[in-house]
């Protein structure tokens, strides 16, 4: 009973599509729009069987619609519509699969995951930094500040170790280092060097 009803509904639908296409051939734009809207989900479902990428699926659906438009005078309203549409769809899917195959033999697709950063500059091996400007700036510092930088940064000592080594108090080392950073920053950025 339900089978019969299903069959009848399918037959009605097939006749409806054939009628819409016949009307579209005669220039009925509303019928044409209804037809294309009606078949697009079906075409999309078919295309999804062959392509995983959403863009590929949609591209092939659009190619099928364009072909349908281009050859719409080849449809004979006496005959069922779906075999006509399916043959066109099949050809476009096959052509696209072949085109994809050809492209893939020539090109290697590198997904973004293979790059460490999407910024191009970040993937370029950095050159060894130029320290001469820094050393010159440090040499130009007053003796207390220079000592603080040398002990804390160049020799990487803790404040306590630096205090023992230099005889300066932790507090005055901090102040000297702070002033040194400030004048180094001024000297290096002011000189146009961004090291």
């Amino acid at each position, binding site marked *: 009973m339900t089978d019969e009803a299903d069959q009848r509904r399918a037959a009605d639908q097939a006749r409806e599509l054939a009628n819409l296409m016949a009307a*579209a*051939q*005669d*220039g009925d*734009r509303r019928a*044409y*729009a209804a037809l*294309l*809207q009606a078949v*697009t989900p079906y075409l999309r479902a078919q295309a999804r069987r062959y392509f995983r990428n*959403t*863009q590929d*699926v*949609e591209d092939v*659906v*659009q*190619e099928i*619609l*364009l*072909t349908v*438009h*281009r*050859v*719409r*005078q*080849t*449809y*004979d*309203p006496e*005959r*069922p519509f779906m*075999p*006509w549409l399916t*043959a*066109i769809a*099949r*050809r*476009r899917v096959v*052509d*696209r699969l072949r*085109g994809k195959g050809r492209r893939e033999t020539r090109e290697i697709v590198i997904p973004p995951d293979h790059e460490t950063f999407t910024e191009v500059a970040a993937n370029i091996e950095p050159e060894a930094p130029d320290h001469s400007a820094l050393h010159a700036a440090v040499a130009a510092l007053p003796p207390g500040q220079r000592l603080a930088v040398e002990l804390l940064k160049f020799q990487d000592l803790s404040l306590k170790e630096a205090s023992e080594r230099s005889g300066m108090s932790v507090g005055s080392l901090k102040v000297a280092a702070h002033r040194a950073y400030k004048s180094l920053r001024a000297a290096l950025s002011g000189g146009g060097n961004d090291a």
Partner: protein
Amino acid sequence: MRDEVERTKVAADTNRLIDTLVSEARPVRRLRPPLVRAAFWLAVSVAVIAAIAYLHAVREEHGLRHLFGQFADIGFTLQWLASLLTGVTAIVAAFELALPDRSRAWRLLPLPAVVFWFLSIGYGCLTDWVERGPDGFVAGHSFECFGVIVGTSVPLGLFLAWMLRFAGAAWPMETITAGALGTAALSAAGLSLYHDLDASLMILIWHGGTTALVVGVSRMVGRRMMRRRHA
């Protein structure tokens, strides 16, 4: 989530495309049935080929009597009918295959005629051998045959390609192969009316070979064109 967003975005593109197509949808004239269209092409082509054959026969002072005298030879008649039948069936197949919803089995239609054609030429080669021995087996060259088959096939083929310009939608290579075979076979049939080749081997080489060449080149050109269109 991202997939969903992307899917909606590309689906919107498709909806825009549908809107564009609908706005450009002018009324179109439906194609006539394929057999009617094939008959039209065949009528034009047979007229052209017959005219060329007639002009040649008159110019070479053989006259029409010579032309039809050859049909007394049963071997020639069979061979000629086979090439004509190949041409007609291949052209009918091409017109059917050019439509998306016709069966692909149409491509088998010219097959019996092709086999018969080549068998009849092969049989001619055999009788030549029996009658004349190895001496009758000299493969001369006849660039005239080649030139006439190619020269007739190209304009008729272009006319056919124009009539079958929608074939790219479904079975382009099958249509091109059948169309090229039909055009070349008809050209060969027209040619044998006024151009005597005394050895069957030469017919095999120049008629059969040129036909194969026309089909091969057409397929190659067709494939290139398809590839470029969908690159």
